[in-house]
């Protein structure tokens, strides 16, 4: 289940990097922010879990609007830096505002009954709900990428000035994509809060943004399935390595470096390339 949450998160992230060419280094804001919103709504206000998750996604979209508004003014590396800094700012705020409970996090979030019917404390029920949400998000990304709107996004990535001269209000497109990506990341974060029954600072910190980049990079930037593969790989690795003697961060760092140097296309990307070569 945690793999599904992270996979959705990575897909949302990939929507930006893979198709708009924007590397957000602050996506943890939307993921972790949504987790807090959902956890709070469900635990304190006693909302239905689905409503809580939706609130998380909407909250993330709202955050996306603010962050995006500031960040889309620049491209490439500048954009990455700005999102990173804003993300860091958000993490500081989360540390300080009372409803997040500082470093303890919001703990013991009840899973409750979905729409009052389905008991999510049942692991299998929870699993299918998570799967359904993931599939919904995955489909949404696919749809957006292969839509007329997605087409314009690609054109903007290619040559922004030219797109402007053709009459496109480029900022709106980018902001639109950013908000969509944030909302989907929020969907993932909100679901995670219900699955794990807590929301903590780890999800809003920049290391989390780094992790989602790793997942996407490892799986294959700009491939639809890549982020899913990458997320599964990283999460499994993290849990597996936990019982190892070797320091986890070092290994993750090494994977990062190796990926960038030799498998830039990522697992899915390399696999597709291999297939293409064979069919030639």
């Amino acid at each position, binding site marked *: 289940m945690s793999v599904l949450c992270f996979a959705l998160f990575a897909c949302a992230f990939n929507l930006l990097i893979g198709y708009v060419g924007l590397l957000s280094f602050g996506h943890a804001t939307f993921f972790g922010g949504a987790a807090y919103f959902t956890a709070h709504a469900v635990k304190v206000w006693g909302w239905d879990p689905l409503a809580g998750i939706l609130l998380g996604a909407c909250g993330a979209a709202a955050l996306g609007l603010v962050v995006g508004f500031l960040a889309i003014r620049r491209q490439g590396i500048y954009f990455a830096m700005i999102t990173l800094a804003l993300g860091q700012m958000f993490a500081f705020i989360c540390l300080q505002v009372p409803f997040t409970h500082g470093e303890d996090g919001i703990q013991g979030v009840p899973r409750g009954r979905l729409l009052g019917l389905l008991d999510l404390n049942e692991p299998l029920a929870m699993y299918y709900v998570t799967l359904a949400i993931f599939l919904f998000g995955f489909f949404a990304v696919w749809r*957006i990428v292969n839509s007329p*709107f997605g*087409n*314009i996004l690609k054109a903007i990535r290619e040559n922004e000035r*030219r797109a402007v*001269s053709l009459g496109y*209000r480029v900022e709106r497109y980018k902001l639109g994509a950013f908000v969509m990506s944030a909302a989907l990341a929020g969907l993932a974060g909100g679901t995670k809060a219900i699955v794990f029954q807590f929301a903590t600072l780890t999800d809003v910190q920049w290391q989390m943004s780094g992790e989602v980049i790793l997942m996407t990079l490892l799986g294959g930037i700009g491939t639809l399935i890549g982020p899913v593969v990458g997320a599964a790989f990283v999460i499994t690795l993290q849990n597996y390595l936990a019982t190892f003697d070797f320091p986890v961060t070092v290994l993750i760092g090494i994977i990062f470096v190796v990926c960038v140097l030799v498998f830039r296309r990522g697992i899915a990307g390399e696999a597709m390339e291999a297939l293409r070569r064979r069919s030639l």
Partner: protein
Amino acid sequence: MASATPILSATGITMEFRGFVAVKDVTLSIREGTVHALIGPNGAGKTTVFNMLTKFLTPTRGRIEFRGRDITALKPAEVARLGLVRSFQISAVFPHLTVLDNVRVALQRPSRLATQFWRSSDVLSRLDDRALELIDAVNLSPYAHLPAVELSYGRKRALEIATTLALDPTMLLLDEPMAGMGHEDIGRISDLIRRIAKGRTILMVEHNLHVVEDLCDRVTVLARGEILADGSYDEVSADPRVREAYMGTEHE
């Protein structure tokens, strides 16, 4: 055919860059339905005027009106949406899209297919006929499925013109459309411009005087940021100041 009312008029526009005056108090009015040339030596301020007219630069002073509407304060995308579209002097295409996709991107905008993120992009295939037609018009049909990066320079320019035309603009601003083109293409693009000029207004910057002579109803000469002469090609080319500042001695 050409009516007397100006479709685009600029009054006293001035552009200063940190103390350097690139364009000084230029007043220009383009009559609807004409092909108007803006010529002048290098650095005279032609591209700068273009940039101001399409709002990629905001004039330091002055006022610009398009079809009776004050557009001095608009954003570039808005100006394009009003039907005033430009091409760039240094070629501007979407490099990793195919030629066909390049043109389709332009066609998409007025077709209201641009913001639909919930539909499949297959709906765009309905734009293909029109796109191929435009590509054929600039002689790029054999390359329709090639990514634009792989085109040679001259062909990129041709593609850019096709893309600009795709918007079916009321008025076109072409910045040196012939630059870098081979002779046969110059002929072809001239024909194309002549064809599209029907029912449209065109303002172009061009150094190829044959083309200017051939195509343009009216010529404005810019030198050092100011208007030096204005009139038909014959009038202007007879002006000794223009000959000295621009054409040089050899041009007959």
